[in-house]
């Protein structure tokens, strides 16, 4: 199977999980992009999170493994307590270096790494959260010509992260979680066959 040519990045912190659960059911079963989710969380029970998300979508959901090749139509979750990086050959690398913005996995780290590889073929979505992680990564995606989406702060459980992102980055779309899937579907296009 050929690797993904487009990537959809989804980052969230406090309240981000609810937004993800809201947007997942709307994703097309033939989504022609790899989806990478970076979610701040306390527990390291990654398999529980993967199971929780898998219920909401027909797309395969897996915990990202190192050296794994990014495939279109697959959802990857950054594992707890590691940063997730993307190599130029579209394989995944894990990194246990210092926390960034007090976070590991860090949204900034993954967003920045992914857009260096996918450039304008990147869509980044930043959701509810109580800190700044993700804002700089969102700026990098914008600079590289990718598409940026931020959750409408008025609809976010915790509005700090989206509000700050909107102030710092000229984002393309500000949307409620329920409206995001159609934008992701049209960016990714459909797999043929």
């Amino acid at each position, binding site marked *: 199977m050929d690797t993904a040519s487009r990537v959809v990045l989804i980052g969230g912190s406090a309240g981000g999980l609810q937004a993800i659960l809201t947007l997942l059911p709307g994703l097309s079963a033939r989504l022609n992009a790899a989806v990478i989710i970076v979610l701040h969380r306390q527990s390291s029970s990654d398999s529980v999170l993967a199971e929780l998300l898998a219920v909401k979508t027909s797309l395969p959901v897996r915990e990202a*493994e*190192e*050296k794994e090749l990014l495939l279109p139509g697959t959802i990857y979750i950054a*594992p707890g307590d*590691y940063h997730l*990086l*993307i*190599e*130029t050959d579209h394989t995944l*690398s*894990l*990194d*246990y*270096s*210092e926390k960034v913005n007090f976070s590991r996995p860090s949204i900034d*780290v993954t967003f*920045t*790494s992914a*857009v*260096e590889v996918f450039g304008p073929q990147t869509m980044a979505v930043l959701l509810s959260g109580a800190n700044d992680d993700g804002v700089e990564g969102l700026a*990098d995606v914008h*600079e*590289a010509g990718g598409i940026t989406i931020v959750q409408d702060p008025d609809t976010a459980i915790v509005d700090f992260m989206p509000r700050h992102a909107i102030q710092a980055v000229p984002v393309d779309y500000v949307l409620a979680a329920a409206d995001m899937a159609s934008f992701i579907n049209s960016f990714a296009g459909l797999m043929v066959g």
Partner: protein
Amino acid sequence: MNRNHISEQEVSMLLNDVLERYGYDFTEYAHASINRRVNHLFQLDRFPSFAEFRYRIITDADYASRFVEEITVNVTEMFRDPQFYYALRQQVLPVLATYPLIRIWHAGCSTGEEVYSFAILLKEANLLHKSVIYATDINTSVLEKGRTGIFPLSQMQQYSRNYMEAGGVQDFSSYYTANYEYAKFRQDLGGKIIFSPHNLVTDGSFNEFQLIICRNVLIYFNKMLQDKVLRLFCDSLEPLGFLALGSKESLNFTTVSGQFRQLDGKEKIWRKHHL
């Protein structure tokens, strides 16, 4: 992505410089992570240009040492992944107990927190007196720290929790003396640990072991280097020896996978077949 960013190509040039001049081979490290770290150092030390950064590394051996220290990841903690240590305690120590002399290699040990953790397990199983732990790392300055057995006191609360989750029932603070802001671990623990430099990329096997621990090192290597290092581990293990890796590392899809069987449970611990 910012104005002052070192490209992947430039990082490759630097790594070749470091290999040619100093013999440290980072060329088979996974790129994304090493690019990030090189860029981090470049910005941290405020070089105005890549050319100046490169010149400094080539001409200043002290700075080159700093380069090596900074691009290798040295984040660690005691009893990291407590369940892993619980599994060692339950499944590996009873087997090690049957040997007259226990030889352990902890590769890529960084500042030694995990080495001291394992020494505590050996102590509690009454095996430390007949054990030798070789703790190695590419980075000589972290080995110095490991040798002192002195860690920040501020971490001890977390480490004590980890210790208990790993099945520890003693008073964790009995293993160190607190002094101002530091905790110095007991001499009987450190006395069985030999800290010495070893480069997994270029150095070979130096003994036969019943247990090799190497956690969160392989994730920084590319596939070829991972295979090479795993063959080194395989060659350095006695028949029926154990290999213990980090929580996201695996022998699946590697050239040595056929020579190992994973222990029951979720932990990343394998046992070498009897040949």
